[in-house]
């Protein structure tokens, strides 16, 4: 009995020796699988980031369109409901406020027509920069930024879209202006 146990142990010693011979193979396989896993994680995250980016771009484009036709900014003849896209009223530009803008264009602050935005849904900044040669210019800079120091951090994700608009003062005086919309951390909490 003892002899047979010894002989079995001898067989198992060979097995242990075999395992140590395969260590280089194990290392190779581990490195190979690890490399592949890392590349797959990178590929998936890149793909997701691209889709998020395109969604954000479409969203900001749609919001920009809404602002360009929003009655709170567009010029309207007295007694007429007609508005021309991209033709703003100088008085409406002067008295533009973040409260009115968030209420009039709820999508801008992360809400919708049926679901008004909460104060910290999304942070935005809208700038109307009058670039006309007239001495008096009608510019506006409205935002719902709570913490300006955080916005200046370049790590904060943001998207900006620029468009060109007109600001009507009267029938003889029409200014040209840059409309610039920046949305910070789309889909996230406000900053």
């Amino acid at each position, binding site marked *: 009995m003892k002899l047979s146990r010894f002989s079995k142990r001898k067989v198992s010693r060979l097995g242990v020796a075999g395992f140590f011979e395969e260590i280089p193979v194990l290392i*190779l396989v581990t490195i*190979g699988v690890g490399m592949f896993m890392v590349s797959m994680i990178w590929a998936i995250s*890149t793909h997701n980031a691209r889709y998020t980016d395109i969604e954000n771009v479409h969203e*900001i484009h749609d919001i920009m369109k809404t602002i360009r036709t929003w009655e709170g900014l567009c010029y309207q003849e007295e007694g007429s409901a007609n508005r021309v896209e991209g*033709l703003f009223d100088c008085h409406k530009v002067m008295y533009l406020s973040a409260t009115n803008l968030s209420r009039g264009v709820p999508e801008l602050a992360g809400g919708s027509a049926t679901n008004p935005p909460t104060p910290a849904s999304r942070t935005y900044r809208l700038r109307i920069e009058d670039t006309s040669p007239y001495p008096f210019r009608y510019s506006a800079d409205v935002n719902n930024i709570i913490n300006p120091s955080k916005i200046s951090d370049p790590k904060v994700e943001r998207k*900006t*879209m*620029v468009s*060109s608009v007109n600001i009507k003062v009267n029938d003889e005086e029409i*200014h040209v202006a840059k409309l610039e919309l920046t949305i910070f951390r789309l889909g996230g909490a406000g900053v």
Partner: protein
Amino acid sequence: MMKNKWMRKRKAQSALFDGILFFLLMLISTTIVIYYTASTQAPRTQSESQLFLREYCEDTLTAVLAATINDTSYIRPSDGAKVILEDQSVEELILEDLYIRYENDPLSPANALEKLETDISSLVFELTHVNQTLLEEQKLYQESFHYRLYAEYRANSKTVSMDLWDPTWQSGSSTKTEPKTVISAFKELEAVNEHEVNRNANATVYLKIWKNQ
């Protein structure tokens, strides 16, 4: 005993060979994944991006043509008198410019329309160029654009044109050329009949924009 040892060596070699083969397969797979991910175009395709830019270009042309300039002037070629124009729209000013060129071809003095054209060009420049502070932000239209505003007036098989280039584009060279890729928008100017010289006359204005390449 010798045979057993030889077999053990062979076994180890075989395992190493399998390991190397597996590693190579993983290496090839990784390379394919990285190459495919890097080379696949972003979901925002080229055409979609071009569409947004074209929209921007059209909006800019519309805004420029509708805008008015408070004070500009030109020298009347017939008598050299200075003609002052106040609160005229850019569309009207372009037509005025083209009409003067049509009536006085070749234009004399050559700089008669210089002030008028500089004022129009400045308006486009201010609109299409972004402040340095704004460039720091991650923008969809990331940089300032260069532009070319070109207008043509055709009547009685005669064509005259006005050609305004971004002064910062190829500023060193005397003859400017457009890059390969430009985004353009155009508009037929309807007010051309106001001149009542030739009802067959028509004018077209083009705005071309491009980024630094």
